[in-house]
């Protein structure tokens, strides 16, 4: 394994890092005037990184399973799939960001730079095959997230969100680090292969504690119950584009970490972690659904919705099979489209003065004021509720299929029954838009960039999305095959 190969396999992250550093210099020299230009460059860099990852996805099988830097990092099909999703999601969020901050007079050149550093961290997270690499990626992503959450410095809610996220996030990092130290202590290795080999020989109670702590820390990052408490506050307080980002790309990255940890180093101890995942899955589905019912703020509602969705994704992981991993990736892909679509639509909701609207009362009767936007939201909401023929159904379909195939029929039955509770508040969303009388004026036009992002998301989620099921199935199966060696 030559050094050049290692550099080639990590070229996406390296390229993004260099771009971010150059942009940082430009930002320092030019100030906030060039913020828009920097955003465009950052989007281009993210799309480029995604294209590179697609190229790597096809080739990853041939080149020593994509191992780089002495197996600290693995650019396998799973990692590449996750990265494509992360980079494209970040790019999409970045496209709809500037308008929001311009209105509030707060758009600054650091924003795209932070997004890029965040993307690098997330890329490292999904590819990390060593606990140290993992921690570096996690912190790189988290630290830029804390800053992004409090990006509107003058806004109390934003600062509060940033602080809350930082304190709880730091705690979670500490928990992970503690788990890592236990695992290292009991196995003598931080490398995933090494840990798996050591666990195969002897899996002691102490090591179990290590596993539990690591999983708990990661569960915080994906906001699975019972580590979800920060989510509604941070999602509500953070600027909307940042919330859109938090709900999409970092979720993918953290879920990637969780899947890789569960299926690679801990693959031999499925029985040890499966019950944790099952509990977190069902609890997330129920708490996410019940918590959302009383909410008036749409961002808060979508926060609970994301908790709810994480529960469904975890059901796929609980299957602990290749089909389960594939279903997680399928669900994540659809989930990203749903989340970005929903938040983009939310960003397009403004009153004529340009104030962002974010409560139920604001969107009453939207279908008569902005029919196109209301129909897009209808597609998104029914998709989130998992009602066929919209594509959101397919995500639920594959995770439940994986669970049933793994003989977890009871889990699947309880999970799907609980999804009906969730349907209630998505229905409320539609009810308010379509059945209620309009109460206030809304801005009647939105920029093309927003429409483009929303249009792509809605097209994927419309019944047309089912045409994607075959390629998506192949890609996710290929990505899941990364762990076959481990299983």
């Amino acid at each position: 394994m030559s050094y050049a190969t290692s550099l080639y396999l990590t070229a996406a992250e390296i390229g993004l890092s260099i771009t971010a550093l150059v942009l940082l210099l430009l930002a320092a020299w030019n100030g906030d005037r060039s913020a828009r230009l920097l955003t465009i460059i950052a989007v281009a860099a993210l799309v480029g990184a995604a294209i590179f990852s697609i190229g790597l996805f096809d080739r990853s099988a041939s080149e020593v399973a994509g191992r780089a830097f002495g197996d600290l990092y693995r650019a396998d099909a799973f990692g590449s799939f996750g990265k494509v999703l992360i980079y494209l999601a970040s790019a999409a969020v970045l496209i709809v960001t500037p308008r929001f901050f311009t209105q509030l007079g707060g758009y600054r050149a650091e924003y795209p730079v932070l997004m890029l550093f965040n993307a690098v961290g997330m890329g490292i997270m999904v590819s990390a095959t060593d606990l140290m690499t993992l921690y570096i990626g996690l912190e790189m992503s988290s630290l830029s997230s804390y800053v992004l959450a409090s990006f509107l410095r003058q806004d109390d809610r934003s600062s509060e969100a940033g602080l809350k996220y930082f304190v709880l996030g730091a705690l979670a990092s500490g928990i992970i680090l503690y788990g890592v130290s236990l695992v290292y202590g009991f196995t003598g290795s931080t490398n995933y292969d090494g840990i798996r080999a050591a666990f195969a020989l002897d899996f002691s109670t102490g090591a179990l504690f290590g596993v539990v702590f690591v999983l708990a820390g990661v569960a915080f990052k994906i906001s699975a119950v019972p580590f979800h408490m920060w989510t509604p506050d941070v999602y509500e307080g953070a600027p909307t584009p940042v919330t859109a980002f938090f709900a999409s790309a970092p979720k993918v990255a953290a879920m990637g970490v969780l899947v890789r940890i569960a299926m690679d180093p801990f693959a031999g101890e499925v029985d040890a972690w499966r019950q944790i995942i099952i509990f977190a899955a069902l609890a997330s589905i129920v708490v996410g659904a019940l918590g959302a019912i009383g909410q008036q703020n749409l961002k808060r509602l979508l926060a609970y919705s994301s908790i709810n969705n994480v529960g469904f994704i975890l059901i796929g992981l609980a299957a602990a099979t290749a089909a389960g991993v594939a279903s997680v990736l399928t669900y994540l892909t659809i989930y990203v489209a749903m989340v970005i679509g929903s938040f983009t639509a939310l960003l397009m909701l403004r009153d004529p003065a340009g104030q962002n609207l974010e409560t139920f009362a604001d969107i009453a009767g939207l279908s008569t004021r902005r029919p196109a936007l209301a129909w897009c939201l209808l597609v998104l909401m029914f998709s989130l509720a998992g009602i066929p023929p919209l594509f959101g159904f397919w995500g639920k379909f594959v995770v439940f299929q994986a669970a049933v195939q793994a003989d977890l029929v009871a889990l699947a039955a309880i999970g799907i029954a609980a999804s009906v509770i969730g349907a209630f508040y998505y229905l409320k969303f539609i009810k308010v838009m379509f059945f209620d009388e309009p109460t206030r004026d809304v801005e009647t036009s939105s920029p093309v960039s927003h429409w483009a992002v929303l249009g792509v998301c809605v097209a994927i989620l419309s019944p047309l999305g089912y045409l994607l099921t075959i390629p998506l199935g192949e890609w996710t199966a290929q990505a899941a095959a990364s762990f076959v060696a481990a299983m």
Partner: protein
Amino acid sequence: MEFPILSLMLAVPLAGAIACLFLGAHTARMVALVATLVDLALGVLLWLNYDIGGAQWQFTERAEIFAGFSYALGIDGIALMLIMLSVFLMPICILASWDAISKRVGEYMSAFLLMEVLMIGVFASQDMFLFYIFFEAGLIPMYLIIGVWGGDNRIYASYKFFLYTLLGSVLMLIAMLWMANEAGTTDIPTLLNYDFSPQAQTWLWLAFFASFAVKMPMWPVHTWLPDAHVQAPTAGSVILAGVLLKLGGYGFIRFSLPMFPEASAQFTWFVFVLSMIAVIYTSLVALVQSDMKKLIAYSSVAHMAIVTAGIFAFNAQGIEGAVMVMLGHGLVSGALFLCVGVIYDRLHTREIARYGGLAINMPRYALFFLLFTMASIGLPGTSNFVGEFLALAGLYKVSTLVTLVCTTGIILGAAYMLYLYRRVVFGLQVNEDAARMPDLNAREWAMLAPIAAAVLWMGVYPESFLAPMRQDIAALEARVARAAPDFDADNTIGTPREHNANYVGFAHGEARGEEGAH
């Protein structure tokens, strides 16, 4: 390759639905009417080309464009009849909404056309998951139809409709996933002959039952229906009663019975008990309703109970009768809702007490209403008689008790329908405004006359409708025969006597012999 007529029948209303979203009120109405009429014409073509006694599955199409399931269409006789019912009622629904709907017409028509796509899709699906997608997707347009264009309490009704039916269906999905995993196929014709272990069947049957019983709707999960019916606009009620309620019965015939015969036998009494309670209880409830739509809604529950009882009779007569009741009830209850709609459009109330003596100022209306009332009661010569008679005859072979109770329900049915008719059409003209209502106009004629013709056709010559289904129902009967339960009706056929009953035996024989000797 054959001409893909089923896909075309899905594509026409779908194209219409998309077009209607962007059109103005008048054009949208026209587009919707044309699209539904084209689909009706295609349906007639389908029926004419259906080869009675030919292959079990006809007009099959298959395309592997999805992962995990296929786009597979095809129909047998039962599906053909239900598709005909859907395409027949659809143009009538559009006509019924012509003037009654004035706000957001394009979206309304679009929702209806979408509904038509999904209903045809349900009946034509040959893949389990494709069926599920169509089955479940119907919730979305119906939710909007009730919620946007419904009555005063529409929001409660729309939520109740959606969540009830969703909760029913989701467990069916898990059962389907398990079946696909176990049998290794999602193809319905293959699954029809796959034998699941009896233990598994019990669970699968219950999961499917949860879904179909809610759709049907069976007592005690019927409570969404009166709310949904009352709040929905007229055409919505017609579609709900006419076609959507048939999805449950179709599901029992297509899935529960042939795929899980042992479990069906095991649960037969459960279904019978629920059906008996439903027939009596909902008929009694219907008797005391003061809201016309609510009354017809409860009568639907009672009729559907006869369908479930007939299906679980495990014999061809019972099942044929059940399908005929579904078809007949689809026409008749649809027509009754239209009759209610006609006077609702004039007076904007469904209170029975506000009407009276309509026979005086609306004689033609009174005639149609009478025909449909009689059909609903099951008068010989009308559609419902054929179905109810067959269903009860089939049921009688199985259980005299259940038949007795269900027949009592029919008597009660006569009571509440005639009582309704007396209060609305006969008697004195108590209200000025009701007395001033004009008789049917041309559009209303066009709505009611075809249904009246179909009702009489089905009553006088049911063979047209039974012939395409006969072979499929015989196959179904053969499939479930091994599990058919024994019940109290002792129908063992005795050995016939050698001679007529008035045969005097030896002496007579001798006499004839003597006669011959002469």
